[in-house]
């Protein structure tokens, strides 16, 4: 039995998810260090976004 279909080059493979990756890193022994860096990174990301928004708004 043949199954006919147009093969579609569908994008990537499985999404490892942020949560999934972070769990592994936590379990992997990096533990507390990761959490600290995460919170730092989160804070950094928040600051990074604000200037961008301002620039867009100031464009005519």
């Amino acid at each position: 039995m043949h199954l006919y279909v147009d093969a579609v080059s569908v994008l990537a493979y499985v999404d490892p998810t942020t949560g999934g990756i972070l769990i592994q890193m936590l379990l992997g022994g990096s533990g507390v260090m990761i959490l600290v860096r995460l919170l730092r990174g989160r804070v950094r990301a928040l600051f990074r976004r604000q200037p961008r928004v301002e620039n867009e708004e100031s464009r005519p």
Partner: protein
Amino acid sequence: MLRSSATDPGSLRDPHSAVVVQGRFVYRFFRGPASADIAAARSSGLLDRLVERRAVLPYELVSHDERPSGWLGLEADAVVLRQPRLAFISYPYEWPFGLLKRAALFHLDILRTALEAGLILKDSSAYNVQFEGTRPVFIDLGSFARLEPGIPWRGYAQFCAMFLNPLLLQAAVGLPFQSWLRSSLEGITPDELARLLPLRQKLRPSIFTNVVLQSQLQRRFGGLDPDELAIRPRVELPAILRQVERLRGLVESLRAPASTSTWSGYEDNTSYSAAARTAKAGFVERVVTELEPDIVWDLGCNRGEYALIAAKHSRAVVAIDGDPKVVELMLSRLSPETRVLPLVMDLRNPSPEQGWGQRERHGLKERGKADVVLALALVHHLRFGANVPLGAISAWLAGIARAGVVEFVPRSDPMVRRLLAWREDVFDDYDEETFETELRRHFVITATESLPESTRKLYSVRANADAA
């Protein structure tokens, strides 16, 4: 770009490997990075070790000349492997708890074996596991990839969604997972499961980590990439192996809550005398022996008594029942070498075609026809329990099987009286004569037997030559 008129719709997601089902074989193609990966899987001895363990079906390398026709554009350096076809394809949303658990443990074992050989699995889809009888088989050879040191196990979240969480839904929350998985082909997310888990379960360390914590971290940080998080995700192999071991321990500890079900004991115990049961078994055995079927479908198999008989005289039996607890009971009676695959499926609403283009996952009908169908103690349930007319039942059976054994249970039978107990009897068409007339529309009746000490009657039927 891979161009093919014949790739299996279930294999469309990986741009570097594809599957073609043709004749008696399944062909698997590997191009680009995938051909290097499969080469590593072979040269490391991993594939052969798995074949030896019967975890992977035996394979042959297909030379350029032997490649199936109709396939266009395959590079000369692509690798083509060929394997025998399985008797029946089934899906996680059809498996009883015990089989999903077996598949989960099996998947982790394959992963561990791969890791020890310097490879890893690209994904952890439950659709990569199939069953021969009740024995799991790993079919997605394209999932093997060379291990890159430090790269995390990408399949972990998918393993949780497709294997762990559905098992936990049943073991820790008490809800069967089949309906959920049927609609959500990607599985159950940690967030969804966390909402249902009782507090007591959430506090179990392994569940807290893999479900609650994962769901919380995904909520807070999901959608951000590593750059935004200012972390470099790096996980070493020993950590992955430890995690696999812990997951294995967790899955191993899970049990489907046992409880009684209305059908699991009743029909078996009260409907047949010993003489009737013997006669019924004898009739089924004679018919199946004579027809020598490849595949038998036992619909409404209950505890599998007749499926086991059919298994002695066929290549494979698929035993289907709508009650998950009954199927679980049947599974517990089966030895690993018995060629019976027990599945949970409501025959009033059998598995539909699903996935992309509605073609990735086949419906029940698309996986037919069965050589023989056993419709024992089934028709009266469909007629009275689901209001399906006899003509429709007969037509449906003819659409899915070439021959079969069908049992007629008349009005006077205690079971029918029980089914009609609280209902108005509007079923004018339900009698032996109408039943036989409807059967003859699609089948030739080759033998009948009235069961002793019972009003029930068995029919051996063969589909009309002109039935498609």
